[in-house]
């Protein structure tokens, strides 16, 4: 009951000074939106990257060495190795992946003659996979490569627009493998479908085919090599256990789980955004605290006589102090609630800006919502509201009634 009275007292104070209150709430909303965005940014890249990695349903990668995927040596006898790993009880599925760079028949000449603009070098990334296993791409239109194992090819939307190709079109590709001096013969494919690839950037030209066809682009008929194997652990087993089982069988290979990749990226590549978000979150939180503390303190100082009168006519010290506390809570609470939708709009705007960074996959986002961010936001704002109210509450608690009233009359 006392709490409700104090809340009503706070509410009356707020509505009596509408301009100050509205501006205070708007200020908290602007600061709160920025704080909310920084919390979304602090783990956004990590969460988004994890989602991208997990999208294919594979939770571990097997590589020949610890070098960055596609830059190190390939795995030899890949199909035999994949079968051996697949036979492990901890493993549910294994996908072989080999990438090859190629140019479309008539684009290679144009590319060679042109001046490099640093953006589009006319290269197409061909992803070769085992067509009997779940593909690493998602079909958006047409059919998958498995429908035409010998010559089937799926291409992304950007490549389809560049080549003017659609399902059923023929595309001739020329592999760019190893030394430039040795040019393998061109290979003609039939486009079976349009697909999306998880790590494509907006300007990427990417195509998917069988691993044998990818090798054929490099003039290799009997090659049984893969850049890496994607492994899906059996339900309930977990990636770590599956990785340990593979390591026990083949200690010479490098096995890395999605969680380990995310952890590594989080510590290195993504750390700048995490730290800049920490710095900005701290600054905005301090700013929000300052805003509310100054508004409340100035307001209290302006109405010391009035507060002393209320005390003199019987309002208890606790009730007046609680009124100041609730005033802070209402101001920060209302501003904080308004800040969430504003924060989402600003986050979408900032995300659009950052996603223009070169090499950022289409599916990667910098600002990602998670309930944890909202929880942390509420905790931080509550702490700010409490801290902001502390000083004006202290002023009111220690207010000498008689002295203040006398001062008021004299002045």
């Amino acid at each position: 009951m006392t709490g409700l009275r104090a809340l009503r007292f706070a509410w009356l104070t707020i509505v009596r000074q509408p301009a100050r209150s509205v501006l205070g709430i708007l200020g908290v909303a602007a600061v709160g939106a920025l704080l909310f965005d920084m919390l979304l940014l602090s783990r956004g890249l990590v969460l988004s990257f994890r989602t991208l990695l997990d999208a294919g349903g594979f939770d571990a990668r097997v590589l020949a060495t610890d070098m960055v995927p596609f830059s190190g040596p390939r795995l030899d006898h890949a199909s035999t190795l994949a079968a051996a790993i697949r036979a492990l009880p901890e493993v549910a599925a294994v996908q072989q992946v080999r990438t090859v760079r190629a140019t479309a028949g008539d684009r290679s000449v144009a590319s060679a003659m042109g001046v490099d603009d640093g953006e589009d070098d006319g290269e197409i990334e061909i992803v070769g996979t085992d067509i009997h296993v779940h593909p690493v791409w998602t079909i958006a239109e047409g059919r998958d490569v498995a429908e035409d194992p010998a010559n089937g090819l799926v291409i992304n939307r950007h490549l389809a627009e560049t080549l003017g190709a659609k399902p059923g079109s023929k595309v001739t590709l020329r592999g760019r493998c190893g030394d430039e001096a040795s040019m393998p013969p061109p290979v003609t494919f039939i486009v079976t479908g349009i697909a999306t690839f998880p790590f494509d950037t907006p300007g990427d030209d990417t195509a998917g085919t069988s691993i044998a066809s990818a090798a054929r682009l490099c003039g290799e008929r009997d090659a049984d090599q893969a850049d890496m194997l994607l492994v899906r652990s059996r339900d309930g087993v977990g990636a770590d256990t599956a990785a340990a089982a593979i390591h026990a069988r083949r200690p010479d290979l490098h096995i890395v789980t999605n969680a380990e990749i995310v952890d590594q990226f989080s510590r290195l590549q993504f750390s700048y955004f995490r730290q800049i978000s920490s710095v900005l979150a701290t600054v905005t939180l301090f700013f929000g605290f300052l805003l509310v503390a100054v508004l409340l303190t100035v307001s209290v100082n302006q109405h010391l006589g009035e507060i002393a009168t209320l005390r003199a006519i019987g309002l208890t010290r606790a009730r007046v102090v609680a009124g100041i506390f609730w005033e802070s809570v209402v101001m920060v609470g209302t501003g904080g609630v308004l800040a969430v939708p504003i924060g989402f709009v600003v986050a979408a705007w900032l995300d659009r800006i950052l996603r223009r960074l070169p090499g950022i996959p289409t599916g990667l986002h910098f600002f990602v919502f998670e309930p944890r961010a909202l929880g942390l936001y509420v905790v931080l704002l509550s702490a700010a509201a409490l801290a902001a109210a502390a000083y004006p509450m202290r002023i009111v608690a220690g207010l000498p009634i008689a002295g203040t009233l006398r001062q008021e009359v004299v002045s």
Partner: protein
Amino acid sequence: MFAASRPRAATWGLIAALLVSVPLVAAPAEAPGILISRQLAEARHLAVGDEVRLAAEPSGTASRQFRVVGIYEPTPDPLRFAQPPLDVRLHLPDLLALTGDPADAASQDAVTAINVALADPADADAFARDVAGRLPGVTARATSSPDARTNTFVVIERFHTAIAFVTVLGSAVFLLALMVMLVDERRSTVAILRLMGFTRRRILLQVCAEGALIALVGAAGGVLFAIAVQGLFNRFFQWRYDTALVFLRVTPAVVWRSLVIAVPLGIGASLAASWSLLRRTGAGLHR
């Protein structure tokens, strides 16, 4: 000033090519000399005079012996600041001998890029077209032309500008709220001044001057605070990423931009807050 390159990538090629112009101290023994980055020296506990084996293959096959003749501080790369630069610099012939395929004579004479200094840098585009026409398969571009690196910083700058915009918006509201309260406090003073004969214009000018002064002092305080903390900020991130990069620099342009935003904002907030009082008559202002 100019780079011509084949698409074939060999990461160390550029490093070795750069070394052509870097004088290396001759190694006393028969092992060729190499330079290693400070970060690599610290990570592998290497010192000048140590002998190391380098191989192009991760398996270590066909490795060759080298002697560390120097440790250098790598030029900070803003795009790779989060990764420790574990780099080695070799003479180009040593690198080609290490990475080339003995069975392929062409691989012993292949580089990733050739840097060309033009007599007149303004000819860069014409030179690029000339190279592309005469040497099909070779791409050439001016080193000053925009690429992914410049795009990255343009985007980062836009991001920081957007953050600054939101912050300024919050600050403007904060300032306006404060000014409303301060002006409200002076309701009686303004009323007395009006009754004494002060014109609205004069009081308005006074309010503008006060707002400008507060904004100027506030902006100056902010700039001084930024100058004071920039060292701390830079030292923290330089320590965190083990780099010599400068992350934050308060330049005259930044100071100027802050003042250009802050002062009009202060004056505007003062005017907006005072407007309701000045519209009233002197008697109407008295409570």
